[in-house]
């Protein structure tokens, strides 16, 4: 089999809050291949978002190994992590995090800013419009977020995640703030990214949405296991 896009082995993370430290991840193993979609289910506080933040290089694991395309990135310095986030990952969050003072196109273009600066004007516009078209809202390019519906806003956020043509798309409860019908459309938009070889990791509470992914995993007691299976079995 090909080298996985990303591979986590024995990942651990302890959260140090005001109370006693809590082992949130105790040994996560995960491999995601190109074009594969993975859903991660779990109760609130089970560590889904923590896991996603480790995969997205927002944070570092306390232990274990993280390979991206076969390259060990477990202890990557922040500057290189930022460059990787920009080049390899796309993020979709539960709250859309669109800047109200920017148009839909400008919000998407935000993801094109990286360590080197910005794409040139004409190329930037073309890239942004292509991403908006991909999620079917190119006609809303000049609209600002307050004038868009919840579903439209989330699709702008998806376009922002896809604009750099990432190898891995991370979605953290992307339908949490949407009605069922709009949620379906958003899941479909995310899934379509895998058709172009992008790996998708979806964190969700919704079993229906999870079932539309290629694989469904459950995070229980700090480890990942196939949904429905007993941990340790």
């Amino acid at each position, binding site marked *: 089999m090909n080298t996985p896009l990303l591979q986590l082995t024995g990942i651990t993370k302890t959260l140090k809050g005001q109370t006693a430290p809590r082992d949130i991840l105790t040994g996560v193993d995960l491999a995601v291949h190109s074009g594969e979609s993975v859903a991660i289910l779990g109760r609130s506080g089970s560590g889904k*978002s*923590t896991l*996603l*933040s480790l995969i*997205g290089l*927002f*944070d570092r694991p306390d232990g274990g190994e993280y390979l991206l395309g076969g390259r060990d990135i477990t202890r990557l310095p*922040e*500057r290189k992590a*930022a*460059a*990787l*986030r*920009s*080049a390899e*990952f796309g*993020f979709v*969050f*539960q*709250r859309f*995090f669109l*800047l*109200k*003072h*920017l148009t839909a196109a*400008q919000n998407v273009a*935000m*993801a094109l*800013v*990286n*360590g*080197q*600066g*910005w*794409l*040139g004007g004409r*190329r930037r516009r073309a890239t942004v419009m292509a991403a908006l078209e991909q999620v079917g809202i190119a006609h809303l390019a000049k609209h600002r977020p307050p004038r868009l519906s919840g579903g439209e806003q989330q699709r702008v956020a998806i376009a*922002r995640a896809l604009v*750099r043509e990432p190898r891995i798309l991370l979605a*953290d409860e992307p339908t949490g703030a949407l009605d069922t019908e709009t949620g379906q459309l958003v899941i479909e938009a995310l899934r379509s990214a895998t058709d172009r070889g992008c790996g998708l990791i979806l964190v969700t509470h919704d079993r229906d949405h999870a079932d539309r992914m290629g694989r469904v995993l459950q995070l229980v007691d700090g480890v990942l296991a196939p949904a429905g299976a007993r941990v340790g079995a």
Partner: protein
Amino acid sequence: MALSGRFRSSLVIGLQGIRARKMRTLLSMVSLFLGVLAVVVVQAGAELAAAAALADVELREGKDGTVQMFVPSEGAAGTIAMDTLKGRKDAVGVISTGAIIGEPGVTPINPHAAPFDGRGRGPDSDYYCDSSGYCFPGRDPKLAATSPGQAIELGLSGMTGDVRQFRPYRPVSGQWLDFDSAPSLSPRLVLNKEAAKGFGRYRVPAEMRIEGAPVNPTPRIIGVVDDGDEQPRAYVRADELLTWMPTTVANQRNGGLQVLLAPTATEIEQILKSRLVANGVAADHMESRVINSKEQIASQLALMRWVFLGMAGLVLLIGVAGILNVGLATVGERVEEFALRRAVGTPRSLLAGIVLAETLLTGLLTSAAAIGFGVLGLKVLGSVLAGRGPFPQQLDFPWQAGVAGVVAGLIAGLLGGLIPAIRAARVPIATVMRA
């Protein structure tokens, strides 16, 4: 992939931020405005003061570096000096005397070469001075013996060469003295502006009575210069002046001869001193000094400028505190935006650059407003005060004040934006995951 630089990205995103928060930007500008304006005003005032103080100092005193030497009126010292300096381009001897042009035997319109607009010493003054500059109490007995008439009294400077290399008189009209042609029996005069004012205002006969000269020549006025002197004065070739009076008389009447030498003319200075000493002039009677008036005045003005700039800097600091306050509040409100930007790959340094770009642009906008206000204020001030007292006729906004305003705005933007920029760069990305 064609990528533009971080700098441009920071500016573009910073501008977007400013447009999104117009009221905040306005508040920052208001807090900064007085400080930047204070810097602009101090710099403009200092430049105008320097221009007024330094404009004429070279005309009156001479360029910095010029060596000024006084040859005493002992024996044949004057004749020796004139002979030594003859034909030299790097040294000029200046004989000063007085002259009255106009009707003979009358009290001049401006006794003692006083300015024509009421300043200086008139015929009713309670003291009088002779042509050597010595003043005495009481009314001038010479004036008491004559009746008022159409004559103008002025100072007369006879020169062995072109003095403008040392004192750069500004041409006003006509021409300057020609030192290469043969001397004329009719002395050619170049008037200063005050003397030209007198000749423009009064019609006087062309007869010149030179102090100490036995015969009155008929002068020819060939030009007007601005020499920075408030008293009427005329410049003449020394040889044309000495056609009508002996050197010894000219030398004795005015306490000696003034010699101006280029900084490189050390040889002629030594020759002149040696010849004078050889002819019995005491070496310690020959004073010489290097002119540095402009430098002295400039250093005094610079001191004043720094004192006032220091005060303006304090006002600017208050503005910086304002911009810092608004900046910190804004960063607090934009935590999610910065976390999101970091999440999509914007590096910390670029985030800090975006915040700094906003405060720097705010500083620049404030500078533009303060400079505009300064230009307008100076125009209004100019229309009210120009020509009065120490104010020059034309008050142009000095470009240095504009530069100072821009620098002040940028510094304030930098100082006020630094801490918010660091805070923005440290916003944890996890903020977007936990929201």
